[in-house]
């Protein structure tokens, strides 16, 4: 069983069964459009209402290209502006599914659109616009992030190595993004390495707001069955319906630990709730009334006995030596069992770790996938040369592109 989206094991909830279940995409050319059966006007030209026309106009602005990836509920394509082919975007096409049948629209995509519209931050993916196609497939026009996601870097232990300064730079960008969400009263609820995409300049962008929501009013219950299980905080395993931004901070802590150890911190196999609780007890300590007052009142509080005492700072330092004592201190406080003791996003940014040595790496120094050859190509284009052997027209549009070869005699060694 691989990485399972939290949603798969969501118990049927009143109006929304099978949230984010696997959905079948309708193919583009399926022409029976039941919801809007408009008979074609004479001459083939179909009468369009205002909304349809606006959609068509928006859609016509882009030229769709290759598929960039696909997820549980969407396929993502590369595209560019018709008027300016150098302006790349990503079009996330929401798959039509059961939820659509019931609601006329996918709720996850509505969440994603709603929250992305509101958030404008360098470390949060940008949503440029939205349009729908004739099957009422929703399409999100997003900024294109061509360098893959953080998970790919973490897992590529053979080719990618990174330093504590790189980890600090990535964690700082993530922490800023999460803080910004929380300042705007939004919980992300799906923070994990593969939802952290990497921009061409190396910036980290928090993406996939399909599970986000506003922070709740008092007594307003929230679902505890969210956040990908390995990144889910203990209060959710005890089925607390009243939580806060600290749930995202736990996920960030798990990402931090994963970046350092290059292995998932809480990887329960099989990934059941029980196994996750046991693993957290084993690695952090057992939640008890002593270290987490009130925890035994949470709906499904059960822990293995005998309890494991909280791990000491020495233990954490021995486990995660490379980030130094301040880094370990931050990590421990992000993975604090009791959410009230866990740092808030604000407090995370106030921690000494960021200003301690080493300085976070500069964007241009961060390692990236396939860095070697690409970096070389970049260097060569700068000098007006060619990439050896690689015959395909690369995307590198350096300044020497299309320029007759100018040989650099002035610079030749005398």
């Amino acid at each position, binding site marked *: 069983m691989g990485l399972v989206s939290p949603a798969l094991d969501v118990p049927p909830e*009143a*109006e929304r069964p099978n949230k984010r279940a696997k959905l079948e995409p309708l193919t583009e050319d399926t022409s029976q459009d039941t919801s809007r059966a408009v008979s074609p006007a004479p001459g083939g030209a179909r009468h369009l209402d205002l909304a349809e026309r606006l959609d068509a106009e928006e859609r016509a602005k882009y030229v769709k290209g290759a598929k960039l990836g696909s997820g549980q509920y969407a396929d993502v394509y590369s595209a560019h502006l018709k008027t300016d082919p150098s302006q790349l975007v990503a079009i996330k096409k929401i798959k039509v599914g059961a939820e659509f049948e019931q609601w006329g629209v996918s709720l996850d995509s*509505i969440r994603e659109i*709603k929250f992305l*519209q*509101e958030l*404008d931050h360098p470390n949060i993916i940008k949503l*440029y*616009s939205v349009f729908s196609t004739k099957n009422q497939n929703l399409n999100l026009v997003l900024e294109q992030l061509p360098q893959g996601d953080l998970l790919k870097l973490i897992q590529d232990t053979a080719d990618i*190595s*990174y*330093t504590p*300064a790189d980890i600090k730079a990535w964690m700082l960008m993530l922490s*800023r993004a999460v803080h910004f969400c929380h*300042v*705007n*009263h939004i919980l992300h609820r799906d923070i994990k390495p593969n939802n952290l995409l990497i921009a061409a300049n190396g910036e980290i962008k928090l993406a996939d707001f399909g599970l*986000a*929501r*506003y922070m*709740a*009013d*008092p*007594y*307003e219950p*929230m*679902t505890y069955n969210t956040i990908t299980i390995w990144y889910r905080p203990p*209060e959710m395993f005890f089925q*607390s*319906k*009243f*939580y*806060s931004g600290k749930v995202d901070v736990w996920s960030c802590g798990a990402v931090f630990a994963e970046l350092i150890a290059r292995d998932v911190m809480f990887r329960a196999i099989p990934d059941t709730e029980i196994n996750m609780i046991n693993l957290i007890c084993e690695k952090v300590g057992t939640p008890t009334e002593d270290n*987490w*007052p009130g925890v035994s*009142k*949470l*709906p499904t509080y059960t822990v293995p006995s005998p309890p494991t005492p909280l791990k000491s700072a*020495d*233990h954490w*330092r*021995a*486990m995660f030596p*490379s980030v130094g004592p301040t880094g370990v201190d931050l990590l421990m406080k992000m993975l604090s069992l*009791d*959410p*009230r003791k866990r740092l808030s996003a604000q407090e995370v940014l*106030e921690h000494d770790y960021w*200003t301690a040595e080493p*300085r976070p790496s500069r964007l241009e120094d961060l*390692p990236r996938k396939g860095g070697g050859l690409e*970096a070389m190509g970049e260097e060569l284009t700068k000098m007006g040369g060619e990439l050896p052997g690689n015959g395909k027209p690369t995307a590198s549009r350096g*300044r020497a592109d299309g*320029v*007759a070869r100018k*040989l*650099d*005699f*002035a610079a*030749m060694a005398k």
Partner: protein
Amino acid sequence: MSRLAQSAFVPAVRREARPAGSDSPDEICPVCKSSRYLNPNLRFLVNPECYHKMCASCVDRIFSHGPAQCPIAGCTRTLRKPRFREQTFEDLKVEREVDIRRKVAAVFNRREDEFEDTRAYNDYLNDVEDITFNLINGIDLEDTERKFADYERAHADEIKENAELESQEQSSYRVLQKKEREQIRLRREAARREEEEDKRLVEENRREQLRRLAAGQDASVVEKDGQQVQLKRRMDRRAAEERQRQLHARDAPPTPVTNGATPFIKGLKQRKGKEAEPPVDAFDGIRYKHQYYSLQDDYTYSFLDNAKKDARILAGGYNVHEYNERALADAFAGLGVFIADEVTERAKLSHDIEVPTEMAATEAQDVKMEDPV
């Protein structure tokens, strides 16, 4: 130098690479008839006035007391000793062509970003190539040389400026970049080794603990000792690293000179000096402040009483204080909106791609994305 320059123009075989000891004519000095065969140290020099080749000792003998006529029969050029140099290329014709190209390139050193478009730049390169070709092949020599000199005079300032830019780029950009790449590589390499070493230590420690546990020792003592051992090892290593670092600090590369206020032509990347980096600001200069209200620690409001004390609510991390903040933010959100400003702002926007950037609270309450529970 680009790859193309290597393959198309520069002959692959350089002088040094040639096998010594042959008795071919270019191994014999045409002036004194010494041969490399008898004197392996024989060095040949040329002077770009006429490219006639002779050995170093002839150059010394003939030109040490001042300019003199070339000793090669039929050549009337006056040569000066300082201009003699070793021949770079096998073929003297190539040697001469490269010299000419170098000279032309030093004067016609316009940069791509000075041109409106690629087309214009290509045209310019073409013109320059015509001039070069004429100079090399002696076509319209007088006319071409005059044009060349005119151009040089007319654009002296720009030529100098571009030359400076070029050399700055050469030294500060390329060299620096290479150096940085290398340093990054080394750092990564070190990090990787450290990572492995850490893994090894953790593993070793774990095995040791298991062994002791198997031997029947008290679990909590074993664990505590294990951590101590591990920590100590790390400390030792850290100390050793620190010593290394201090040792190396001495021969650290000098910090690069920054380009100061040089008026850069657009399109060139300017490299920042290392010291110029400001201290890290985790908040990235963004401070989130309430403009219209100040938040109290507590509000007496019976609706909230239970939420403030119910363990089932508190233990999950729910925080009434945060709710208060949010409620106030929502209530006051409208105050920051000035419709007149918004309208002007909107009028200014070109409507190509609409990028919605409104902040949450301003219009948050229309659709509440509640979790169905």
